[in-house]
C-alpha cells in the first residue's frame, strides 16, 4: 500500500513537473504553421527518446555507484570485455538514430519546397533594421525597433513587448503561401520568428529562400538571430498576420501611399518641412550609429555634429549618404531611401546640432542625381 502511494506520488510529481517544463514559455512554441507543428513534434519525440535513454543509462550508473560501494565492502569482479554486449550497444543506438532520421528527413524536404508561392517578399537585413519589399507590388518599407530608449536605460517602466516592438510590422496574409527571399546589405543577419519556425540567414551577396503559410491571424514576434554588431539585440522581427481580404486592402493602401510619395519629389519643399521629415528619418535610420545628438561613436562611426569636412563639402555629404563609403560600415542608401528622405535627412544633418550651414537640399535635385 505504501509503495503504491509512493509510486503514485512520484508519478504525479513527474507529470506535474513535465507540465510546468513543457508549458508555454519554457518549451519550443508549437507555432501557427504546419511546418512549425511538425518541427515541434520532432523536437518532442527526440526529447522523450533522450529522456528514456537518460533514465536507463543514469539508472544503471547510479545503481552501480550505490550497489558497489567500497565502503559497503564491495569487491571488484574483474571482467573487461564482452564482444556481444559491445556489438549490441552499437547496433541499438544506430537503429534509434535511423528512427529519428526518417521523420526529420520528411519534414526537411517539406521545408525546402518553396515552389508555387502566392506572394514573394524580399527581406533585407541592415545594421540594425529589416527592410521588407513586396515583390512586384512597388511597396517596400523599413522596420525599426520601436522600444523607446528610456525603457532600455531603465528610466521608464518596460512594457510587455519590450525589445519586441517595431514601428512597422511585416504584414502577411493567412492561408497563402508566402515565399521569403532573404539577403543583407552589410553583415550576416538571421530572420527568425519562433511561432513560424522560420529562421534563415540573410547573407550579403546571396539570396536565400524560405516560405511560410500562416494558419491563424495574430502578431508574431522574433529577433535577429545572428550576431550583426552593436545593436544585434535591438533588431526585432514582428509579423502581423491578417485575413487575405484585409491584406489585399492594406496592400492597395500602401501602393497608393507610395505613389503619393513619388509625386512629392517634383515640388519645392520648405526648410521646415525638410527639417521635420529629416529629423524623423535621422531618428529611425542614422541615430543608431551616429547617435541622436550627432556625436557618433568614433572611430567606427564618425561624429556628424561639427564635422567640418562634411559641412564644407556638400557634394561629398550627398555622395556619402547615397553611395555609402566602401570598406566601412556606412551603407549606400540609394535603394533604401527615396529622394525626399535623402534630401530631408541631409538638410537636417547640415542644420542640426550647431551645423548651421543654412543649406536646403531639394528632393528634385537628389532625384536628378539618382537617375544619373
Amino acid at each position, binding site marked *: 500500500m505504501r509503495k503504491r502511494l509512493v509510486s503514485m506520488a512520484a508519478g504525479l510529481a513527474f507529470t506535474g513537473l513535465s507540465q510546468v517544463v513543457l508549458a508555454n514559455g519554457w518549451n519550443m512554441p508549437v507555432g501557427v504553421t504546419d511546418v512549425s507543428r511538425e518541427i515541434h513534434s520532432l523536437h518532442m519525440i527526440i526529447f522523450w527518446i533522450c529522456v528514456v535513454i537518460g533514465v536507463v*543509462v543514469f539508472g544503471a550508473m547510479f545503481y*552501480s555507484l550505490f550497489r558497489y560501494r567500497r565502503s559497503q565492502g564491495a569487491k571488484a569482479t574483474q571482467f573487461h570485455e564482452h564482444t556481444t554486449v559491445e556489438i549490441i*550497444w552499437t547496433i541499438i543506438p544506430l537503429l534509434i538514430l535511423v528512427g529519428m532520421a526518417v521523420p526529420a528527413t520528411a519534414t*526537411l524536404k517539406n521545408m525546402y519546397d518553396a515552389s508555387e508561392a502566392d506572394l514573394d517578399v524580399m527581406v533585407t537585413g541592415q545594421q540594425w533594421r529589416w527592410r521588407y519589399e513586396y515583390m512586384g507590388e512597388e511597396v517596400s518599407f523599413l522596420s525599426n525597433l520601436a522600444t523607446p530608449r528610456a525603457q*532600455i536605460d531603465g528610466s521608464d517602466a518596460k512594457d510587455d513587448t519590450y525589445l519586441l516592438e517595431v514601428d512597422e510590422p511585416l504584414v502577411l496574409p493567412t492561408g497563402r503561401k508566402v515565399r521569403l527571399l532573404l539577403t543583407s546589405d552589410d553583415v550576416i543577419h538571421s530572420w*527568425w520568428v519562433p511561432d513560424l519556425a522560420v529562421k534563415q540567414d540573410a547573407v550579403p*551577396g*546571396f539570396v536565400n529562400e524560405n516560405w511560410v503559410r500562416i494558419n491563424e491571424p495574430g502578431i508574431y514576434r522574433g529577433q535577429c538571430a545572428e550576431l550583426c554588431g552593436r545593436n544585434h539585440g535591438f533588431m526585432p522581427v514582428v509579423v502581423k498576420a491578417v485575413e487575405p481580404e484585409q491584406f489585399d486592402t492594406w496592400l492597395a493602401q500602401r501602393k497608393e501611399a507610395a505613389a503619393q510619395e513619388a509625386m512629392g519629389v517634383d515640388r519645392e519643399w520648405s526648410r521646415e518641412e525638410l527639417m521635420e521629415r529629416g529629423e524623423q528619418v535621422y531618428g529611425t535610420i542614422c541615430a543608431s550609429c551616429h547617435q541622436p545628438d550627432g556625436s557618433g561613436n568614433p572611430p*567606427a562611426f564618425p561624429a556628424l555634429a561639427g564635422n567640418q569636412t562634411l559641412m564644407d563639402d556638400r557634394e561629398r555629404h550627398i555622395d556619402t549618404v547615397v553611395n555609402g563609403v566602401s570598406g566601412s560600415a556606412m551603407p549606400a542608401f540609394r535603394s533604401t531611401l527615396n529622394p525626399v528622405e535623402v534630401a530631408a535627412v541631409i538638410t537636417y544633418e547640415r542644420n542640426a546640432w550647431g551645423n548651421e550651414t543654412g543649406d536646403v537640399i531639394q528632393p528634385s535635385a537628389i532625384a536628378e542625381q539618382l537617375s544619373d
Partner: protein
Amino acid sequence: MASHLPPKPTAQYEETAGGGLAAGAPHAPRGMMRWLLTTNHKEIGTLYLIFSLTMFFIGGIFAMVIRAELFQPGLQLVQPEFFNQMTTMHGLIMVFGAVMPAFVGLANWMVPLQIGAPDMALPRLNNFSFWLLPVAFLMLLSTLVMPGGAPDFGWTFYAPLSTTYAPPSTTFFIFSLHLAGISSILGAINIIATILNLRAPGMRMMDMPLFVWTWLITAFLLIAVMPVLAGVITMMLLDINFGTSFFNAAGGGDPVLFQHLFWFFGHPEVYIMILPAFGIVSVIIPTFARKRLFGYASMVYATASIAILSFLVWAHHMFVVGLPLVAELFFMYSTMLIAVPTGVKVFNWITTLFRGSISFEPPMLFALAFVVLFTIGGFSGLMLAISPADFQYHDTYFVVAHFHYVLVPGAVFAIMAGVYYWLPKWTGHYPHLRLSQWHFWLSVIGVNLTFFPMHFAGLAGMPRRIPDYALQFADFNMVTSLGAFLFGASQLLFVAVVILCIRGGEKAPARAWEGGEDLEWSVPSPAPLHTFETPPDFKPQQH
C-alpha cells in the same frame, strides 16, 4: 615496435629531486631565467597549467561581466559594443587560452610518465611552444585598450562582421591567433614524436593508458586543422589590410566560404577539447572502481571514429545559412552518427563501474559528474543534429547551454579531475579533502544553475549574444546569473586547494591511489625532476 627504441639519453645535467626544483645545480639558471629556459617536461607542464588557470580566471571575469549585465533586462552596466567584446574575448580566452593549454600541460606532465619516457621527444621545441602563448595572449588582451576596442564579433568571428565591419584591433587578434596556432601545432608534433618513439620497452600501442591514446589522436587532429584556421585568418588579414575580397560579397567574395573554412577547423577543434577529457576520465574511473577499464579496445576505436567523423560534420553549424537540401541531409546524418561511438564510451564507463569496488575521492567525484553532465550535453547535441529542429534551436541559448555542458562540466571538470588525480604525484601531498569536496559540490550546483535554465531560455526564443532581452526571459537569466556567480566564486576554492597542496598536506606515497595501475605511480611522489632515465620494466596487462 619495442625493438625500434632510441638509445637511452645520457644525463646532461645534475640529477635533482624534490618536486621539480633544480636548486643546487650550479650551472642551472635560477629565478625567472630558469623558467624561461627550462626544457624539462614537468616544469613546462607546470607553466602550461599555471598559464591556463590564469586565463581561466581572466575569461571567467569576462563571463561575470556578461552575467552581471544579463542579470536583469535593460542596459545597466555596459554598452552593447563592450558586451560584444566580452562575449568574444570570453570565448577566445577560454577555448585557446584555458582549455587547450590545460590539456597540453597535463600531457606534458603525464604522457612521459605514463609511457615511461625520460622527457618529451623535443624538449627545446617544447619550451618554445609554451612561451609563444603568453606573448599571444598578452597581445590579444591588449586589444581591450586599443582605440575601437577589442574584437567584438564573437569567438566564431564570422566575416564580413570580422573583416569589413571589424574594429582596427582585429589585425592584432589575427596575429595572436597565429601565434597560438603555431604553439598548438608544435606541441602536437612533440606529443606525437614522444608517444611514437619514447614508449618503455615492451609497451605496445594497445598497452598505452587511454589518456595517452586520446592525446595521440587529438594531436593528429591539431596538425590537421590548425593550418586551416591559419589559412582562414590569413584570408581575413588580406581582406582587411590588402584589399582582397575573399569574404566580401561586393568584391565577388563569399561570406559563406568563411563559415565552411572556419567550421572545418572548428568542429575538429571542439573534439580537440573533449578527447583528452575522455582519456582522463578513462584512467580515473578504473582507478576508483578498482577494476580494469571495460572495453579498452573499443574505447580506442571509438575515439578514432569520433576523430574521423569530426571532419565530416562541420556544416551542422550552418544549417540555416542556406545550404542545399542534400547538404543538409548529409550533415544531419553524419552528425547523428557521432552519437554511436560517444554512446559506446559512456556505456563502457558505466560498465567499468558495474561490479567494481567504488570509492568517491575528489578526482572520482569530478569524473562521475563528467559522465552525467557530458551525457546531458550529448543529448542536446543529438537534438541539435536534427536539422529541421535546428531551424528553431540555432543561435539561441539552447546552443549556448549545449556547448557549455560539454565544455564546462565536460572538458573543465575532466581537467579538474585530472588535477586532483595527479596533484599527489606533482606535489607529494594529497589535496585537502574537505575543501576539495566543497569545491566539487559548489561547482556542480553552480554549473547546473548556470547552464540548465539556458535550455529553457533558448527554447522559449532567446537568441544568443544579446546584451538585453525581452521580459519573458528574465527569470531564466536571473537564475543563470546567480549560478554563474556561485560557480565563479567556487573556483577560488580550487586555487586554495592547489596552493595548500603545494605547501603541505597529508604525504602521498608513490602509488597515491590504491587502484592506480599506470606507470606514473611507480615513481616517487613528488616525482623527481628527472624520471625514467633508465626505461622502466613494463609488464603489459592482458587487454
